[in-house]
């Protein structure tokens, strides 16, 4: 191939390379690929919140619409979950990888897509909103009310009041289970709802009046056992490890690797658990802590998950070290 003919052919090749390759790359990603898909694809870049968080951070979808969210991790490993109540978790998405989540939401509402793998000091700010609307019944999606938090509000209980910390006691649920047989337990202490709205300290007072001749040491352990009767399911442990452990520590001692970077020291559960009412704890988790770095998990966890989480915190607190 020589001369003018060769020159023309090579010019064509040159244009194909210099113009064709970029066009093909961009055209496939932004033109052909969405066109070939039978439903909507939304590309979302995932970065640590300090350098941008999610973009876009709001996605709208209709009930019954199938939509694929493609999360591209740009900087460090993220993990994307969508809640509450959808049970969607992408697992780890390492930098340069794309995690796809395809959903067909059937209930209108505000959902949150969020990072559940510790990725930066501001990790917990890494959230986006998935708004699912019903085209048949448009209009603002009502924030669902939460009876437990409403009840606390009605009783004018300030959830941000710091509880007393327990000093000099080491409640142990295992010891408590062993001594349970010899202790008279008032019926309300067997009622999960009563326990949920009362602190273990309040429970101890009830036990003391029912068992005036028993020492506090035994009763404290029995209360510890009653307040953490059922071992938590594995999903809740996982939920805790992913969302809470980075600050509050693997065993709940307030010593996670991110504990040093928060505005206030993360709560150490063993100290807090004794005087903490379950419903207040629940509200605190769902609403977040005012002026601390404790984020709100109400947009992420279902009420049921939150209650189980409270039980898990008691379990962690009373399991000894």
């Amino acid at each position, binding site marked *: 191939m*020589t001369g003018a003919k*060769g020159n023309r052919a090579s010019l064509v090749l*040159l244009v194909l*390379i210099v113009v064709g390759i*970029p066009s093909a790359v961009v055209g496939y990603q932004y033109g052909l690929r969405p066109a070939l898909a039978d439903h909507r694809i939304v590309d979302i870049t995932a970065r640590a919140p300090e350098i941008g968080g999610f973009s876009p951070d709001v996605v709208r979808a209709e009930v019954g619409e199938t939509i694929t969210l493609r999360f591209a991790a740009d*900087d460090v490993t993220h993990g994307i979950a969508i809640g509450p109540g959808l049970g969607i978790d992408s697992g780890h998405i390492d*930098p*340069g990888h794309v995690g*796809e989540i395809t959903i067909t939401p059937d209930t209108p509402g505000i959902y949150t897509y969020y990072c559940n793998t510790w990725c930066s000091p501001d990790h917990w700010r890494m959230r986006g909103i998935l708004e699912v609307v019903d085209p048949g019944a448009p209009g603002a999606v009502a924030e669902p009310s939460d009876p437990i938090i409403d009840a606390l509000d009605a009783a004018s209980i300030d959830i941000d009041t710091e509880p007393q910390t327990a000093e000099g006691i080491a409640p142990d649920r295992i010891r408590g289970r062993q001594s349970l047989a010899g202790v008279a337990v008032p019926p309300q202490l067997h009622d999960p709802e009563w326990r949920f709205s009362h602190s273990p300290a309040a429970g101890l007072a009830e036990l003391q009046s029912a068992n005036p001749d028993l020492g506090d040491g035994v009763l404290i352990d029995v209360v510890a056992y009653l307040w953490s009767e059922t071992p938590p399911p594995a999903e809740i442990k996982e939920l805790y490890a992913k969302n809470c452990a980075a600050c509050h520590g693997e065993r709940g001692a307030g010593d996670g690797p991110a504990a040093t970077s928060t505005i206030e020291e993360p709560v150490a559960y063993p100290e807090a658990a004794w005087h903490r009412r379950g419903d207040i704890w629940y509200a605190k988790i769902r609403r977040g802590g005012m002026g601390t770095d404790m984020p709100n998990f109400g947009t992420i966890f279902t009420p049921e998950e939150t209650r189980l989480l409270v039980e898990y915190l008691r379990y962690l607190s009373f399991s000894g070290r």
Partner: protein
Amino acid sequence: MKTLIDRPPTDDGRRDVLARMPRLRRIVLSRAFQPVSMLLLLAPFVLAVVAGLLGTPAGNRNFGIVFVWIVWWAVLMVLLVPGLGRIWCTVCPIPAPGEWIQRRGIMRGGAKLRTGRRWPRRLRNMWVQNAGFLTLALFSTVILTRPSVSAVVLIGLTGTAVAVSLLFEKRTFCRYVCPIGGFIGLYSMVAPIELRVRDPQVCVDHRSKDCITGNEYGYGCPWMVYPGKLDRNLDCGLCTECLRTCTMDNVVINLRRPGADLAKPAPGRRIDEAFKALIMLACSIIYPAVLFGPWATVKEWAAVESFGGWLIYAAAFLAATLVVVPGLFWLAVAWGHKGSGSDLPVRRAFNDYAHALIPLGLAAWIAFSVGFALTNGSYALGTISDPLGWGWDLVGTADVGWTPYLSGAAPTIQAAILLGGLIFGVRTALRIGLRHGPPGPAGLRAAAPVAAFLLAATLLLLWLYLG
């Protein structure tokens, strides 16, 4: 059994490669050979730039990082330069746009743009290349980890090549400017391949010098080299034009003894070349220390995480490459030279002995590149399927995980390469010494401190890789 001093000074055992491979000869002699090679490599080059600019910032998932700094670099330093010398310069796409604009054509030039100016005499050496390499080296930690920066460097090199091609004649960029071409040329002297004339006398007698002027079969040497006097690989870009233009069929590509260029008497050796060898050897020690070493602070300095830190790094880096290593080497040469009774100026001895550093320097770069490629080569599989980190899966390998290859054997391989480079370097030093001084043990005495310098550098490298 011959030992090295029994060998005649002119190299023997050369073999004309293309004469034995008529198929290859036809391809190489075709005028389309170089332009087509460059075009073919322009495709991955463009993809690397596009990926760097648009793709994921995660380097290990970006074609622009993985195929430039892992795949290309390893192939270049481990296979091409030691095996085939300047072969990369034959096919490199970086000067292509500039050359094609200059020639007003790809396959064959049209109307000439106008005769480019000659490169200033003062710069007709390797100093611009040395400076360019040092500049890139000072930022290399950033360049080889950030796709966008890497793409900007590739664009910058291409843009510079275009600018130089518009202003100056022929391949001035490749010969005097390209920071990569500099060390490829230096280390190509080790390669067992050379382009030479069969019989220099034919060139002397041949009046028309088509290899310089060009003719209907090809261009005059774009690298501004006269093949008739070519005796080292340093400046020959293996563009193969002279194979086409020579009407006397006097130009050949030879298989030869590796390193044949290093010890031969070459009055043209200059201090810029010596510094190239010293800078490259120093960098081959600094790189594994900074990048593979356990000193995280130094890595952060090198990666320009803070400007102050980088200044410290830059100062130390320049001091090591331009003052400390050359200074120590000067002392070694001067010490040996004094006892040898040679009447050469020390400066000449310094320039000559610097060539003994070339085999060890190349070995150290091979060791470095082998380690990096074995460790990170598996990234190539992922990026071939998903070049931009956009979640594609072109050939089904997008999710192949990172797996270091031969991680247990790598240090042994590296040690073997370094020892090979040391022996090669010491033998080169001896050859140079024996040729310099009065014949006899004096040459040996002159070379001994250089050998000690090589030994010290090797022990330092062994400590970095194994100690």
